[in-house]
């Protein structure tokens, strides 16, 4: 099993990175130009006095280091502050958005990872064949398409020809029972899911194929073949097991980042997740929401990477050795 030293090293790395992220997160939003209240109220004729009182209420008129200490104290105790827009706790905005994004993106991630691995493996095994070329070309083209455009096209096709709902997460007339609600959710999920899967699969295909081709050039593959090991065992037990390491790194990174939500997809389909939350908060310069959301995203990435670090020794015991 992985030795304790390895775990401790990785854990301390996690803590240091998190602290650095907290600091950078804070600084980043203080450096942005534009007083959020002035812009927020440009259309409401808010007097200079009102802007000043709002600044005071949110502590924006304190010196920077004082704000930083308050920020650290609050974050550690789970208080992400109040949103500038709604003056309601930021946590209350982030948690439902997180759940909605998790629903969409976990499904999209699972499908695209599985599809990516299978297609990538087949493409590597049958390198140069029609399947390989067309699969690689298709996924690459889909991957490089603008997500917004792809979403709109799918929406058009889906709504007109398949009677799928246009946007949102649920209908609210004519739905009854748990099964009915789940079916309704599934119908609303089809189009954004498809948009995401088509876009995401490409990178998994390429990485899997590349890693596997790399493994095929190794001597032990020739040896195994010479020993008469069957194709299937060759591919899975020897090829896949060695090629999966870079895939784990990519999957961990993507899973972490995906919590940030797929902004374009969520915008097109009005899916009320993290991506939409961040987008609207950026437009409104709602710092507390942005800070909270970015913190959640970065911490998730850090944790996901830590989990991946813990998985490597299980997949390849050589990893913990210096």
């Amino acid at each position, binding site marked *: 099993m992985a030795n304790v030293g390895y775990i401790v090293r990785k854990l301390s790395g996690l803590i240091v990175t998190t602290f650095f992220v907290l600091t950078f997160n804070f600084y980043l939003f203080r450096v942005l130009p*534009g007083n959020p209240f002035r812009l927020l109220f440009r259309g*409401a004729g808010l007097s200079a006095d009102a802007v000043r009182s709002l600044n005071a209420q949110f502590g924006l008129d304190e010196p920077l280091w004082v704000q930083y200490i308050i920020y650290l104290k609050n974050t550690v105790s789970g208080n992400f502050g109040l949103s500038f827009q709604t*003056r309601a706790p930021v946590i209350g905005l982030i948690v439902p958005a997180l759940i909605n994004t998790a629903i969409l993106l976990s499904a999209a991630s699972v*499908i695209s990872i599985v599809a990516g691995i299978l297609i990538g493996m087949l493409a590597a095994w049958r390198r140069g064949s029609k399947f390989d070329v067309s699969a690689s070309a298709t996924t690459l083209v889909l991957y490089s398409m603008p997500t917004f*455009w792809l979403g709109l096209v799918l929406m058009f096709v889906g709504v*007109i020809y398949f009677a799928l*709902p246009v946007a949102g997460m649920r209908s609210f007339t004519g739905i009854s029972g748990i099964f009915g609600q789940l079916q309704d959710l599934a119908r609303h999920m*089809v189009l954004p899911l498809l948009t995401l899967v088509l876009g995401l699969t490409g990178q998994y295909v390429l990485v899997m194929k590349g890693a596997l081709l790399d493994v095929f050039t190794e001597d032990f593959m020739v040896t195994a073949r010479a020993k008469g090991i069957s194709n299937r065992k060759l591919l899975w037990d020897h090829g896949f097991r060695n090629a999966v390491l870079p895939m784990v790194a990519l999957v961990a990174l993507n899973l972490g980042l995906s919590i940030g939500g797929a902004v374009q997809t969520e915008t097109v389909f009005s899916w*009320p997740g993290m991506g*939409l939350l961040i987008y609207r908060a950026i437009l409104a310069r709602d710092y507390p929401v942005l800070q909270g959301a970015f913190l959640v995203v970065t911490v998730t990435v850090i944790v996901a990477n830590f989990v991946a670090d813990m998985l490597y020794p299980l997949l390849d015991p050589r990893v913990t050795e210096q």
Partner: protein
Amino acid sequence: MMRLAIFYLTLVLLLTITAPALTTVPLKAQASPVTFTVGWGAAPMDTLNPTAVTLYDGGAYVVMHAIYDTLVMADVNGNPIPGLAQSWSYSNSTTIIFNLVHNATWHDGQPFAADDVVYTVNTYLAHSELPIMRLYVENVKSITAVDPYTVQINLINADATFIGELLPAMYIIPKHIWQDISNFTSYTNSNPVGTGPFKFVSWGGVNTYVQLVANTNYFLGPPHIDQLVIRYFTSYNAMALAVQSGEIDYAGPLFPPSIVPTLTSATGIEVVTRPDQRYYYFCFNGYPQGSGNPTLRDVRVRLALSHAINNTELAQVTWAGYATPQNTVMPLTFANWVNPNIKAYDFNLNEAAQMLDSAGYKVGSDGIRVSPNGVKLSYKLEVPSDYAEEYRAAQVIANWWKQIGVEATPQIVDTGTLGDEVVSWKHDTFIWVWSVGEIIGPDYFLSMFRSTEAQPAPNGGLSDSGFNNSMYDQLYVAQEQATDPAQRQTIIWQMEQILHDNAVYVPLYDPLAVQAFRSDKFTGLPSGSLPPLNQYASNNLFLSITPISTPVQTTQTTTSVSTTAQPAPTGMSTETIVGVVAVIIIIIVAAAALSRRRKGEPTKAQ
């Protein structure tokens, strides 16, 4: 063998995921109750708390007005009509008596009375952390209940704006529910109770939807629909599709012009346009203590440059006809406050050049005019990133000015950065927009030209022109206190003339609010100058809308949506379809070409 297995596995996986989704489910049971679904694509709905709404909650206003009432309401032209106050009278210039309706009830059954009004106003007075709400009662000294259905409000100063502009936005909240609340702004108000035409049923959280049911006891008479659902969309493309497919019955408030052909070509949909309450303008930084180009402080330069801007043409360039040129600082929705005698500056490049010549700004050796002090007429022309479509207008203006020897450099700037620049008076010229929020009246659009709004950095007020004119300031106070509408109109028209003569801004255009409506399913669209779906007077729409009661029509929509959506394929532009076809061709060609090349090589890993 393995290939086959993988293929079937993937197929099964895909089918299990998509199967439940592809079974047809009737989208809407329209037979009974009658639901009117509205799509809102502008600012979202962030809160159910009427005391906490801000300008970024434009979508919340619509809902608040459906649930809560105000003493005075706005009619289809934005004029004040009785609400919870059935009549009012001035005892003197600062005292108003409001006679309340007797038959209004709160949604929980409690009767509405003067106590609730007194409580509401005193709450707004006492809580400075409710910035918007406090704005409405700024001029209120006190309020008392004369009897259970009469209140008296004492103002600090005589105020022409109080009735018409402030009251339609001040929601009356129930005393018996709110009196125990200590922290107003963070109170979630998860089950709002008001006196309005619709009762709250549920919402999906921030920015999703709100479900309301008709209040059959509404004091002005019940709505003609049973249910009102407001859905928040983030994409106008999605909303256009939704109204075509019948998923929503009304869509707004501001469709971009590019989507209009999609809507007009679909059957069963009526496109509704009205002037919106905002206008785009060209600003000169004339602040004497600013650090922008000093030549703009000379009114002769500003006047000359104003003759080199053609706002009619710009409206066409930027909005393809979906904007009306505007010649004063008053949006065209406020018909009676717009001075009809003010015409656009004569667009004449020769005249502009002559004006600059005779003012002493001669053309230099590089083709750019120079002031007698040696300052070039070379300006930044900034466009905020939130309104990047105005960049085209900026380019056209720069081109016109080039012909008269003035250099303008258009650039898109982050909105926040531009805001900072304006506060520190570092800008030269820019294109921006003024848009009304909750307060419906001319006041706001005149307020940014007062000298008190032009503060040295870093204080900052609303002013971005630096205009300072004592006559204007006096007139502003006068119109605020002129309770006689005719007199107020004279004063306001005079103020607009002053601004025009001093070329403070070049007002550009007032975009049309484009909305879409399923005229085959509903009737009763309100006429009037306001867009039917707007922030504070949408109740006029919700109360007049009536279903067209032909049962045949409703079953059609439930069984096959594709039938109603038949004309829609013209929707997504032909460019999109060409794009999809092109992509497919590219894939096929690439696959064929590459596979042919590789035919001679070993394919399996040996």
